[in-house]
């Protein structure tokens, strides 16, 4: 336990020391929020745009940390034989995965808090209707996307490939799943494609939870299932 805590703390420190990942996970989403919300017309359906955008961009933050930063870190650790050095200690592969996942989840959590703070301070964001539901949805989203990130990190040959794969999953996904553009204004065909991505259930539940709509048990179980399957596959394919 003490080992896990130490590794997580160090991992988080290293992420924050890397200016690029810190910028993209922490500074970029607030920047997007500011750029996107210059006009203030409500969305079709009447929801103020800010109340959709903050939950949406929180998924952007999770995706950035889980699908882009995490796999690149893991692959770089393998390529540079940093994992090899860890393999010669009692650290298990589960500890390495756990620490990577938790550190990147914390990064995403900090990014989300920044977004929310900015929303309240500048944009008149409404408070979430159901805080517990938002936390649950956010956590399940981080779990499922994080597990996919771990799987990418376990499979790719090197850090460059990890970055290419991570970005080419992340960018199309944030557009079609409604993490960048509200689902209310995207075309039906785009929504149909978006619904096939693992990001769509995350966007849907976090937005529902924020607005106070009941969460669909099916969507929640879907996220849990993705986390379980991708997580198990990652553990099985992991190489030091």
């Amino acid at each position, binding site marked *: 336990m*003490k*080992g896990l*805590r*130490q*590794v997580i703390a*160090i991992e988080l*420190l*290293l992420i924050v*020391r*890397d200016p690029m990942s810190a910028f993209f996970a922490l500074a970029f989403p607030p920047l997007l929020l500011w750029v996107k919300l210059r006009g203030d017309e409500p969305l079709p359906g009447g929801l103020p745009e800010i109340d959709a955008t903050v939950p949406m961009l929180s998924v952007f933050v999770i995706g950035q940390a889980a699908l882009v930063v995490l796999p690149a870190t893991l692959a770089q*650790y393998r390529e*540079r*034989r*940093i994992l*090899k*050095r860890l*393999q*010669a*200690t*009692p*650290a*298990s592969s589960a500890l390495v995965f756990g620490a990577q996942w938790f550190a990147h989840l914390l990064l995403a959590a900090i990014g989300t808090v920044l977004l929310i703070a900015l929303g309240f301070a500048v944009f008149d964001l409404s408070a979430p209707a159901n805080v517990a539901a938002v936390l649950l949805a956010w956590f399940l989203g981080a779990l499922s996307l994080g597990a996919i990130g771990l799987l990418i990190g376990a499979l790719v040959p090197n850090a460059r490939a990890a970055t290419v794969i991570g970005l080419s999953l992340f960018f199309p996904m944030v557009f079609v799943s409604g993490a960048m553009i509200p689902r209310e204004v995207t075309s039906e065909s785009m929504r149909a494609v978006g619904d096939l991505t693992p990001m769509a259930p995350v966007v849907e539940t976090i937005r529902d939870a924020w607005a106070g709509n009941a969460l669909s048990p099916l969507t929640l179980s879907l996220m849990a299932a993705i986390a379980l399957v991708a997580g198990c596959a990652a553990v099985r394919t992991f190489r*030091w």
Partner: protein
Amino acid sequence: MTVIEIESLTKSYQANRAVHGLSLRVEQGEIFGIAGPNGAGKTTVVECASGLRRPDGGTVRVLGLDPRTQRRELLQRIGAQLQEAALPDALRVGEALRMYAALYDRPADWRVLLDDWGLADKKRASFGSLSGGWKQRLFIALALVGNPEVVFLDELTTGLDPIARRTTWGLIRELRDRGVTVVLVTHFMDEAEALCDRIAIVDHGRVIAEDTPAALIAKQHSDSLEDAFFALTGRTLS
């Protein structure tokens, strides 16, 4: 007491037979050297014994444990300095030692290791900013941070300046005097001669000679261990 028993170890990488039919025994509290030409299989042996690679055949026992099936238990009790390894560039020396200490059940005091290995001034230096020799010292310290009963040191003093080498020898002897078993891979015959209680010369994946430095020299009618090494491996300077 025998601490390491390797019997007919074989290990291939695809078609390349790195180790075949290698046997050796290391007794508790000795400094055991492994020397041999590049590509002889030394690193492979060390990695099989420390649970980093699965042998294809043969038996390996370290502290009575099988590295294949009792890896976790074994790794609590051994330490390794690897020939090829790294740490994240932004990680600082003190942070690395603190983190690695936390991975063991009964770690050594990492602050003492910091002093012992002359790293105290570098505590806040990042790994990426260290020169080769300082990285090497940090890796030796990391090998010892778990308070191991057996340490594997692959190319112990490669990259160290002459003063650091001598200091390192002294610290390795101190370790042995505390009862720690040391297995060291080295290309420096003066180091092997000065430091090792016994040496195995490995070539083409086998042990071709195993004895005390004095006996190896005497048997080859050589003047030094280096000459004995040339005689044994059939390598001449050309």
